[in-house]
């Protein structure tokens, strides 16, 4: 054990949980106090996750297994911090700061308990990234979903309630599939601990193996619904575009949670052994279908919100395809793409709200979309107080252009670097060095086509919004609203400048993932903290 730093692992769950409970004691009228406490919590999360990332990737051998309740691995629930979860924690923390600051301008005031639900969403996300136990994953998933139901409905209005109803129904069904999958896996292997499960898979009898794989398949469906794979994704664009801007911004990480768990479980359970490569074809072809569906959606979208929603699908599809190929060099490019596209989409969702504010020029086009997809939202929140941004249109235009460049994967921003890393690995100039197969060519074409589609529709939307705006009204944008957007875009710029170290980190991550033995041994050999003198306990040393 490495002293107090070891307890930092549980901080990303504990801090927002305590803060969420604390916030309930304050009256809704004490808005500033609530906002400050909530903001402090997210800032602490950034510091903690940065520290965890540094410790994890540091020179010292860090023991990332945290035994909750001090029970050793297969009997108790464990939290496991490795390079991948540390990366996701940092990404979540950065997004949460940006979206929370954005919400402070007006959105946090349009309904009750915004900050509590926001913190609980972070509890669920961080817990799901950290946990090493399947059923615990379900619990954190449900915490996250329950908070997200509330957040999606935040601000109310018929459009949100309708989208929220569909979203909740889909996710309740997904939760039931999750339970079926988990219980099938438990029934066939007798364990819920991910590491223990991975170690037991080679020893399962063939007749039980089929049931185990069925369980894993059902479980996978639950995560694919979250990630938005094609026939399971029709709820996603509507729900994301109906959500209020800061909520959609943080929801950008939720579809990546599905991807994260699929990556984690396939690498851990089906990396080697008798069922190696289980489900890879589903991911590959499902990813292709998703990217095609997303691309068509991006081209067909008139409203910017739906454009962003379909961009989420394109990004999910790309990642699922790459997971289906499961090649080291391509996967590390995909991880960079995951980070870059999450930052982009989150920034884009927030930017859309600013751009569309008070904009009547596109009202005719919007009216058509609204007619098809529901009624317009009438009760937008009132104008907030604060410093107005000077040169609004110029700043908005630059941010919009940056989002377009990132989504389509053009140089010089990180979208280009990530796609280049993936494509060059696919074409064989990277690490693998074998001539690409027909499947890989299809992937290359799809990735490039989706980029072109994003470019076309972003250009179209940009021209309509900024150049052919009939009335020339300038939206009133506050500094604290545009700064979070610029902050996220600045992060993608930083990712571009520091692409070398970033790619190196992704490479290390993928390499440690493709060797599940390290993870399994770390969890299985984690020793419980010895008892204090005079305190008797039965669990210490039970291994």
């Amino acid at each position: 054990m490495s002293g107090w730093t070891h307890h930092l692992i549980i901080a990303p769950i504990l801090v927002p949980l305590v803060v969420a409970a604390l916030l309930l004691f304050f009256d809704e009228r004490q808005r500033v106090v609530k906002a400050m406490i909530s903001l402090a919590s997210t800032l602490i999360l950034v510091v903690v996750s940065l520290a965890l990332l540094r410790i994890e990737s540091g020179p010292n051998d860090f023991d990332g297994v945290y035994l909750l309740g001090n029970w050793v691995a297969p009997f108790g629930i464990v939290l496991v911090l490795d390079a991948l979860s540390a990366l996701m924690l940092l990404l979540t923390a950065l997004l949460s700061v940006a979206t929370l600051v954005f919400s402070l301008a007006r959105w946090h005031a349009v309904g009750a308990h915004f900050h509590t639900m926001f913190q609980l969403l972070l509890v669920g996300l961080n817990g799901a990234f950290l946990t090493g136990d399947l059923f615990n994953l379900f619990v954190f998933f449900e915490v996250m979903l329950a908070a997200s139901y509330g957040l999606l409905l935040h601000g109310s209005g018929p459009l949100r309630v309708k989208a929220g109803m569909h979203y909740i129904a889909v996710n309740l069904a997904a939760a039931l599939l999750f339970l079926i999958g988990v219980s099938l896996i438990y029934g066939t292997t007798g364990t819920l601990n991910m590491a223990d499960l991975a170690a037991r898979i080679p020893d399962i009898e063939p007749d039980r193996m089929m049931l185990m794989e069925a369980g894993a398949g059902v479980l996978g469906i639950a995560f694919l619904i979250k990630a938005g794979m094609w026939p399971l994704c029709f709820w996603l664009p509507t729900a994301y575009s109906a959500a209020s801007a800061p909520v959609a911004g943080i929801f950008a990480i939720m579809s990546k949670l599905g991807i994260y768990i699929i990556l984690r479980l396939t690498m851990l359970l089906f990396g080697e052994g008798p069922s190696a490569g289980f489900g890879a074809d589903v991911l590959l072809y499902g990813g292709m279908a998703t990217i095609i569906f997303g691309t068509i959606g991006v081209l067909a979208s008139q409203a910017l919100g739906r454009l962003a929603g379909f961009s989420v699908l394109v990004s999910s599809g790309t990642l699922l395809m790459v997971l289906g190929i499961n090649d080291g060099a391509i996967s590390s490019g995909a991880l960079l793409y995951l980070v870059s596209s999450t930052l982009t989409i989150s920034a884009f969702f927030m930017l859309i709200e600013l751009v569309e504010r008070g904009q009547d020029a596109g009202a005719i086009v919007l009216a058509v979309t609204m007619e098809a997809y529901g009624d317009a939202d009438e009760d937008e929140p009132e104008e907030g107080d604060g410093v107005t941004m000077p040169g609004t249109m110029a700043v908005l235009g630059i941010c919009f252009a940056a989002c377009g460049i990132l989504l389509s994967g053009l140089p010089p921003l990180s979208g280009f670097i990530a796609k280049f890393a993936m494509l060059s690995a696919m074409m064989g100039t990277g690490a693998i060095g074998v001539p690409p197969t027909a499947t890989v060519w299809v992937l290359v074409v799809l990735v490039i086509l989706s980029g072109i589609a994003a470019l076309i529709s972003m250009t179209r939307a940009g021209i309509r919004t900024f150049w052919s705006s009939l009335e020339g009204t300038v939206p009133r944008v506050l500094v604290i609203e545009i700064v979070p957007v610029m902050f996220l875009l600045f992060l993608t710029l930083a990712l571009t400048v520091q692409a070398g170290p970033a790619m190196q980190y992704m490479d290390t991550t993928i390499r440690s993932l493709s060797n599940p033995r390290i993870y399994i041994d770390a969890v299985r050999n984690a020793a419980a903290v010895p008892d204090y003198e005079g305190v008797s306990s039965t669990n210490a040393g039970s291994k």
Partner: protein
Amino acid sequence: MELVLATAIGVMTGCGVWLILRPRTYQVIVGLSLLSYAVNLFIFGVGGVKTNVPPILVDDVPTTTLADPVPQALVLTAIVIGFATTALFLVVLLASRGLTGTDHVDGRNDPK
């Protein structure tokens, strides 16, 4: 015993799936409830169907005469979470009914 349990789970799942595909919100929520009962029984069933045996590990008692305590713990958690989310869904259904004036899942006011 196993046959009765399996049939019960199967019938409930079938009814549940049919109901959640129906256009009225009330049918959807009843369908979801039925599905969650089926799933809860299923979780209970994966531990093996045993009656009148304790889930407590005691010395000198062979493990074959014990019930598996883990599915029982899981099902308890699943019931609590399922109950909470279903209650939340009910509130959203009521809100939707209030806002759209119909109990159609898409908020449309079809005659049929």
